[in-house]
């Protein structure tokens, strides 16, 4: 089978096809949508769907082929493929940037997630967006997103990664503000872009620091050919980066903080929920926001050189995990709950990276992609059925009307809560275990607490939406319907993945083979303390402990929100202040607004423009010079009396003075 394929296309071409398929879809759909808008015809839905959904699936198929090829490599040979440079992008003296793809264990896992989950969500979108007039535009954006995301994960250099990095940011901007007639949604899109850009500056500076450190080190030219941004080169010469490792890692991490919505730059992600729900599922849960995790994992060899940076990553992750989980407890918008849960789960991934458990982080990234996509799509299904309603206090008992959505949602919730044997259990447990095992007890405590809260808010959501008594009126109730097959089928596929997806990473302690870890291990640098597997007995105890901890919260939440709905209100009454603090998301947005945004605009408008530019430079400086001329003019015209005899008098005086000077000098 593979031989047959490779008879016609080279592996390199195939690799580029992964990126090219969605790009073609984006271009064709984009032109289609544009022309339709300009010439006022209705874009063809069939055309859009075939291209927009078909091409991502092609891309997925190609990724699978390459995956099959790589796992077919003989033992001992690194399952890695490098396309080599397609073309040289830019070159100056001492710098050469080429565009090429690198498919190794890590990027292939990422590519599989992106194309796999991505294609499913494309399929789901055909149902979800069926009645939207921007159908073609939607698919062109979504395809473009896939293109950039694939560039991000497959690119062989930091620059190409950055191209993808900003590109997905752009698509995120376009898709959050997809329904741009709503000013709030347009605002959210812009906010996401700007906050991401703040992080990107760190990323840029980190890149520059790598370049400066390597280019200034007088390395053998034939080994790097000035391609100082290439991962291979950076890795090969990473020893030269040791002195600058901490600033490099911290700067790059700033980029990750922006993209992956960690404290303090997480504020854009909740607002990003303004976009269509499949977008939230794909971009703001499964793929784009994990780019930061991918980047840190990709550069693991740099991070292990700086224990301090690792500490920062771990603590940022842990604190974000707990912090976002607390906010998630009280949100009433179904998507906002999921958004905060995404932030929290991303925190777990960073925690894993920070304690050196890179493969655990990627493992969680993968399972998270499955169950969080499913959660969002399930939420989308609910929202779709309720005609746009997102407030969970107005839902309840939906189990009766939409069973498929309900049960897939429950599976996903169990997965995220860490219930055995669903996917999330294994990945979260891996993180907790590695944290504990690495000796980071305080981090482990925070993460453990966060895990409980996760279980609680997820089942609060499940209880309030699907169980209990329906709140809505009967007429409305009758209109609630299960989603069309295009959506439901995707839910079921993802449910299967959420259920069994974790089995490829079952640790040895629990009788598994830890396949993912084995597969990824060559890519990652090793840190001290997490190399050996440790005591199996402790690991099993810890796993059972965290399972019980999560289960207890699941039951608690279930009881409170599905059965005893009056309890939360009473609790809120008791803890008034705390309740308001958390309910208002700690007023972080307001604080940012008050401390940064408003002073900045005020200073610019009133001081820089009003006083500095208009008054000081223009009025005083420029027009002031003009007015000075006028003053001189007044002085000089005083002499210009018009009486000729006076002129003559001056003239004679002048002559006398000159003669005087000539005679007596």
């Amino acid at each position: 089978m593979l031989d047959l394929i490779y008879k016609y296309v080279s592996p390199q071409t195939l690799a580029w096809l992964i990126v090219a398929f969605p790009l073609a879809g984006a271009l064709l759909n984009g032109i289609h949508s544009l022309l339709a808008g300009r010439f006022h015809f209705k874009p063809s839905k069939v055309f859009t769907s075939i291209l927009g959904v078909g091409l991502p699936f092609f891309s997925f198929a190609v990724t699978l082929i390459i995956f099959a090829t790589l796992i077919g490599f003989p033992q001992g040979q690194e399952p890695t493929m490098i396309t080599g440079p397609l073309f040289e992008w830019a070159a100056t003296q001492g710098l050469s940037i080429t565009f090429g793809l690198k498919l190794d264990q890590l990027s292939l896992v990422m590519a599989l997630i992106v194309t796999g989950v991505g294609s499913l969500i494309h399929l789901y979108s055909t149902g979800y967006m069926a009645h939207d007039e921007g159908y073609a535009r939607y698919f062109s954006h979504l395809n473009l997103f896939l293109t950039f995301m694939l560039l991000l994960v497959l690119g062989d250099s930091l620059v190409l990664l950055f191209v993808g990095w900003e590109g997905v940011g752009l698509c995120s901007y376009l898709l959050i503000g997809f329904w741009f007639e709503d000013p709030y949604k347009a605002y959210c899109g812009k906010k996401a872009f700007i906050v991401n850009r703040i992080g990107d500056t760190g990323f840029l500076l980190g890149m520059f620091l790598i370049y400066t450190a390597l280019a200034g080190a007088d390395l053998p030219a034939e080994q790097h050919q000035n391609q100082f941004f290439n991962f291979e080169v950076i890795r090969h010469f990473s020893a030269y980066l040791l002195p600058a490792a901490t600033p490099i890692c911290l700067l790059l991490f700033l980029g990750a903080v922006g993209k992956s919505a960690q404290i303090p730059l997480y504020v854009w992600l909740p607002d990003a929920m303004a976009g269509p729900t499949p977008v939230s599922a794909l971009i703001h849960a499964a793929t784009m926001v994990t780019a930061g995790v991918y980047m840190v994992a990709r550069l693991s060899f740099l991070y292990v050189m700086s224990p301090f940076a690792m500490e920062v990553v771990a603590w940022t992750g842990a604190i974000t995990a707990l912090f976002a989980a607390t906010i998630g407890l009280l949100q009433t918008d179904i998507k906002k709950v999921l958004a905060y849960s995404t932030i929290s789960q991303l925190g777990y991934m960073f925690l894993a990276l920070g304690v050196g458990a890179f493969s655990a982080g990627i493992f969680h990234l993968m399972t998270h992609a499955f169950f969080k996509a499913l959660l969002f799509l399930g939420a989308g299904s609910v929202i779709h059925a309720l005609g746009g309603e997102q407030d969970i206090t107005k839902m309840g008992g939906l189990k009766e009307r939409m069973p498929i959505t309900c049960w897939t949602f429950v599976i996903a919730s169990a997965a995220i809560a860490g219930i055995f044997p669903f996917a999330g259990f294994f990945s979260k447990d891996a993180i907790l275990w590695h944290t504990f095992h690495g000796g980071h007890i305080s981090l482990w405590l925070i993460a453990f607490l966060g895990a409980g809260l996760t279980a609680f808010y997820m089942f609060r959501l499940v209880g309030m939406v699907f169980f209990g008594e329906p709140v809505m009126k009967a007429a409305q109730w009758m209109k609630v319907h299960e989603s069309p097959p295009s959506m439901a089928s995707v839910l079921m596929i993802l449910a299967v993945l959420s259920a069994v997806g974790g089995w490829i990473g079952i640790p040895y302690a629990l009788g598994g083979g830890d396949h993912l870890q084995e597969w990824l291990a060559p890519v990652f640098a090793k840190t001290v303390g997490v190399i050996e597997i440790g005591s199996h007995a402790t690991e099993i105890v810890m796993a059972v402990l965290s399972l019980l901890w999560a289960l207890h919260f699941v039951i608690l939440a279930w009881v409170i929100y599905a059965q005893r709905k009056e309890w939360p209100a009473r609790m809120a009454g008791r803890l008034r202040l705390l309740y308001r603090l958390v309910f208002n998301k700690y007023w972080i947005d307001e604080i940012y607004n008050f401390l940064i945004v408003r002073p900045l605009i005020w200073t610019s408008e009133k001081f820089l423009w009003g006083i500095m530019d208009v008054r000081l430079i223009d009025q005083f400086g420029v027009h002031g010079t003009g007015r000075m001329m006028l003053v001189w003019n007044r002085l000089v015209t005083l002499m210009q009396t018009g009486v000729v005899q006076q002129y003559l008098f001056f003239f004679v005086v002048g002559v006398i003075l000159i003669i005087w000077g000539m005679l007596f000098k």
Partner: protein
Amino acid sequence: MITLNHYLILAALLFCIGIFGVIVRRNILIILMSIELMLSAVNLVFIAFSRYLGGLDGHVWVFMVLTVAAAEAAVGLGIIVAVFRNKETVYVDEVKELKG
């Protein structure tokens, strides 16, 4: 004995009287006459030097100056007539067209 110095002093006196007249008098006709007086003073210097040095150059220049003075008087009087027609005055301090 009348020496060159006497001529020069006389010429200087005449010239100063002319300048004084030009600057002080308001009547435009008298100003014109004062200018003529200054020219005469210059002519006197020319003649005196011509005699003193024994050349003819000075004489030639005097003729030149006389010619120019005649032309100037003609143009000057023409302007005066024009000014008088327009302003009905011959006093220069009443004509201030050049005031800035």
